[in-house]
């Protein structure tokens, strides 16, 4: 209606009750900083967990007698199987090379001793969903008996896989739970602080109603106050986070891959999301709290 008037009213409100406004601003600032630190940590943890889960695979070892056409046929069949994300062929030579990379020396000596490469060729089958690994194994070799002659053995490194899946699921569940709790606590804390600052002025609202002010006439200044408080708190929080990032995280991230994990949120996006959330929560908090006092 009259933005200038409402803005002046909001500024007056902030000036005349600066203590509750400051309390609200600090609350917004603190929760935003905590969230700003926590969100990337959660994402890094989840990302790492997912990466580990991505390594879960079924190895299909080929028998020594498998012919080239059989191998090609098997590869095609595996690719067609449901729930398979990718299939990688590892030849005998490649298997040896990998083993050597993991444990230099040991395998070469063994190979020299044996006079030939002891490692079988294999297909490494990565499931689309790590949790479906067991089902996939069963499909490839029901009851442990391979379906095709070319297959010597199907192995999903059972114990290892179970441990990985359990540990990563726990990490993901915990971080998700913590995030939800933290978000809930932040919203409740900000809303409550705003509620207190408005409660202190409920008599004023009552008088405005009796003088004939419409609800929105009363509400706008409060909502604008909420926006200003949210924006101020959010901005300070982002500045603090930028400072912390540049002095602590960036120098370290060159050495620690976890900190530079590729799938954490971009900082500008994080900052924007935080700002938006702060402004929205405080403005909505103001508007909703007022509802109670507007019923006169």
């Amino acid at each position, binding site marked *: 209606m009259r933005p200038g008037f409402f803005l002046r009213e909001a500024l007056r409100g902030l000036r005349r009750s600066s203590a509750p406004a400051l309390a609200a601003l600090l609350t917004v600032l603190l929760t935003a900083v905590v969230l700003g630190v926590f969100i990337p940590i959660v994402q890094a943890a989840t990302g790492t967990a997912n990466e580990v889960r991505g390594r879960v695979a079924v190895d299909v070892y080929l028998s020594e007698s498998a012919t080239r056409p059989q191998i090609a046929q098997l590869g095609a069949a595996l690719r067609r199987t449901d729930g398979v994300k990718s299939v990688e062929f590892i030849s005998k030579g490649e298997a040896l090379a990998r083993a050597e990379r993991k444990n230099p020396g040991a395998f070469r000596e063994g190979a020299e001793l044996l006079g030939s490469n002891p490692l079988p060729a294999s297909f490494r089958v990565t499931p689309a969903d790590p949790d479906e690994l067991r089902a996939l194994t069963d499909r490839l070799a029901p009851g442990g008996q391979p379906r095709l002659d070319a297959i010597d053995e199907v192995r999903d490194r059972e114990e290892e896989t179970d441990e990985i899946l359990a540990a990563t699921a726990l990490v993901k569940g915990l971080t998700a739970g913590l995030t939800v709790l933290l978000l809930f606590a932040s919203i409740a804390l900000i809303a409550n602080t705003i509620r207190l600052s408005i409660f202190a002025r409920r008599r004023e609202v009552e*008088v405005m109603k009796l*003088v004939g002010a*419409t609800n929105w006439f009363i509400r706008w200044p409060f909502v604008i106050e909420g926006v200003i408080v949210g924006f101020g708190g959010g901005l300070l929080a982002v500045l603090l986070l930028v400072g912390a990032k540049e002095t602590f995280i960036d120098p370290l991230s060159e050495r620690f891959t976890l900190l530079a994990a590729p799938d954490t949120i971009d900082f500008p996006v994080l900052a924007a999301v935080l700002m938006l959330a702060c402004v929205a929560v405080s403005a909505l908090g103001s508007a909703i709290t007022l509802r109670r006092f507007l019923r006169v």
Partner: protein
Amino acid sequence: MRGAAAINAARMAAPRTSEAVPDRPGPQRRVPVAELVRVTKVYDGGSIGLERASMTIGRGEFVFLVGPTGCGKSTCLRLLQKELEPSKGEVRIAGRTLADIPSGRVPYLRRNIGVVFQDYKLLPNRTVYENVAYSLQVIGAGRAEIRRKVPDTLRLMGLSTKLHNYPDELSGGEQQRVSIARAFVNHPPLLLADEPTGNLDPETSIGIMQLIHRINRTGTTVIVATHDREMVDKMRRRVIELREGRIVRDELSGLYRPVESTPAFAVVA
């Protein structure tokens, strides 16, 4: 004992005659400014605010609502502002039944009713000038209009030197003048005052009453709830007496208490 009961019954007959008022042509042929038609108000707790109260107040009238604390004076005024809803009966302002006004339109009703309270109810974080200006800002008045009307009204109230003081820097009488200025600045057709002199000494009270009287002379209908006996007796205006939610007296030029020689008074005493 029986005689007293008979007199009592005679006294109780009074409200019944006044209940018939809406059916008769009122003092004015025009639509009454404020009207209660057999209004009963029972509060949530079960206590009774008003019981079958009827009154008709015409344009330009000056009416005192009198009676002891808790007799229903404030309930009456709050019903007229649609701050409360009647449990039974109808409240009308300028012929309009308040129950029919949707809550979104209530602010527009209230802009036509000036209100003055015992505890002033000024906005504490605004100066005198801003307090009065607020009720103009609420109705969307422009800056020029505010700049013209507010100082004028405050001068009329004798507050020219206090424009930029905050309410807590003023005396009680001055604060009440500000609240009257706020109620009057957009010249509402109806002014409601709930114990306007309740917190003030007798001398200051006279000044406040004079202001309200002056407002009445500009054509504004005024309803004052009070138990300030001296004031009512001095002004000799229409008096509506309430007792336990019932209207027990409605006199055109009355005193706070009926004349001592009347039998009803004897019984009460």
